[in-house]
């Protein structure tokens, strides 16, 4: 939720406004630091780590797009992989057919097509909130999985699609990247991902559109009687979330050079829920942290036990029961706790 304007706050309660400003500033600094580390990663970490990190940021954007629905609209999607998977396949097919066009343009086209899809599907899903929404999104995602599974000609069925990556990627006209290495692909992914994610953050946190989405979440009835077309507001946010999931899927296809039904099946829709809440649904960037932790855990834990996912599931249950804010929520409350004596001393 956006903090109330500081100009007014300062006039009324200068101390309070300072604390609010401090929180906002710290959040902004942490975000910048987080993104800076991601960008600097190729210089800091090994190739294997960068490989993992590439997967993590794509998953992270996907989890952010899921969380956009939950955090800002209170909608819990059980079928968000439909958009991610759709986009991953679309991206693979576009790369196969239009290798002569700049890659960023193709990614943009994929993201747009995913949001058009979201707009159409959202018409059905956002008619009602709560359980109805969760169950219809799950059913629709299952339908998409069935299509991907059956439509062998386009998707390769269970074999999936590979070798769709052109040996030379066109970034801009007359600027090619020949047989890109892991770090180059990773940076290409970030070059798209960061602006897109930051734009979504700004849209929801800083603009009147975002405050409308939040108003409808908090009291749909009152919002309607204040003149908000609550269906369209929810539909708009659903479209946005689908588009972002689409960009994430497109980047995933490029980063992995492989797309299969794994990226559209139901357990993937569940996994993204777990990633988002593990990282923390209260902070916009929390799900990104969740994705990094998820990939790291799958690396370390899977070396110890083949059944590491039990521990992941148990950790998730504990988070749901005892730390609804996830990892970032925990850090945030610790930070508030640490700040409180200082604020009291200032008064």
């Amino acid at each position, binding site marked *: *939720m*956006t903090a*109330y*304007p*500081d*100009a*007014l*706050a300062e006039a*009324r*309660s200068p101390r*309070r406004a300072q604390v609010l400003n401090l929180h906002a500033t710290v959040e902004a600094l942490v975000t910048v630091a987080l993104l800076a580390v991601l960008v600097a990663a190729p210089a800091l970490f090994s190739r294997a780590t960068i490989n993992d990190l590439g997967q993590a940021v794509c998953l992270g954007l996907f989890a952010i797009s899921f969380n956009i629905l939950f955090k800002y609209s209170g909608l819990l999607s059980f079928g968000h992989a439909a958009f991610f998977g759709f986009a991953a396949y679309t991206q693979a097919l576009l790369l196969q057919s239009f290798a002569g066009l700049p890659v960023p343009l193709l990614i943009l086209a994929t993201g747009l097509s995913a949001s058009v899809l979201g707009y159409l599907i959202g018409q059905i899903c956002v008619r009602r909130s709560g359980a109805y929404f969760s169950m219809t999104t799950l059913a629709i995602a299952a339908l998409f999985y069935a299509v991907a599974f059956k439509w062998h000609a386009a998707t390769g069925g269970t074999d999936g699609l590979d070798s769709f990556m052109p040996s030379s990627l066109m970034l801009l006209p007359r600027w090619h990247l020949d047989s890109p290495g892991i770090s180059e692909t990773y940076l290409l992914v970030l070059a798209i991902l960061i602006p897109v994610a930051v734009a979504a953050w700004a*849209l929801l946190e*800083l*603009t*009147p*559109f*975002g*405050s*409308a989405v*939040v*108003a409808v979440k*908090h*009291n749909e*009835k*009152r*919002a*309607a*009687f*204040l*003149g*908000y*077309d*609550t269906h369209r*507001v929810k539909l708009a946010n659903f479209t946005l979330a689908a588009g972002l999931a689409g960009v994430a899927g497109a980047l995933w296809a490029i980063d992995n050079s492989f797309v299969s039904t794994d990226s559209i099946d139901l357990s993937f829709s569940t996994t993204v829920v777990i990633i988002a809440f593990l990282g923390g649904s209260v902070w916009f960037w929390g799900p990104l942290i969740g994705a990094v932790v998820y990939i790291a855990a799958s690396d370390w834990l899977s070396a110890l036990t083949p059944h590491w996912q039990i521990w992941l599931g148990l950790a998730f249950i504990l988070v749901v029961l005892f730390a609804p804010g996830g990892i970032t929520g925990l850090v945030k409350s610790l930070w508030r706790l640490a700040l409180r004596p200082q604020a009291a001393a200032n008064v």
Partner: protein
Amino acid sequence: MSETPLLRLDGIAKAFAGTPVLVDLDLSVRAGERRGLIGPNGAGKTTLINVITGAHQPDAGDILFRGKSIRRLPPHRRNRLGISRSFQILSLFGEMTVGENIRNAILRYRGLHVSPRRLLRRLDTIFTEVAAVAEMVGLGRALQERADNLPYGMQRRLDIALVLAQQPELIILDEPAAGLSAAETRDLIAVLQATIGKRTLILVEHDMDVVYALSDRITVLDYGLVLTEGTPAEINANPDVRRVYLGEEAA
């Protein structure tokens, strides 16, 4: 009477599960009028408001706002035409601050809620407007408070502030004084008298002091029908009204 009324209800009927609540009801409110709507519990006052604002669809009859039928419009469209209502059972954005509550009302009224390009922090006029509305209802010092942390009387004022913030042509208040102390009610009357101005008001209220202070015409509902209509003095003198309504109040 050649002038078109701001709001006209024509033969409105509404039943819930077979029980009629409004029966062939006609009502006409001129622009600038302040209309009190009274009647015993179950007379259909809140249902009438719900029908006017679009929360309920009438079973029969038509609703004309500025001469045009709004019967088929959803609530948000009616609000955009200039009808804004408060709620008998408070309906606020409880987890948001007072300032954010009022901002929600103003952004929509200004049509800015769709704007992805304007930054909230740069909407200076909105902020002064939010502060002015809060000041108007006596919540100027509480902009940063969470709405559901406010005392009940202040929450009532915030509910009304959301209506006033939209500068609607037709203000509909559903029992604005419900649950308020005598002192809070006096303050509320003063606030409303100072802020309604030339706008049209429909006021449902049990507290007759509030009704007499704010209405220049009163309609009495009983069992879903208009029992009578008149100036406060006429209503006060009407024996039928005393029997049906005021008598009950005294008992």
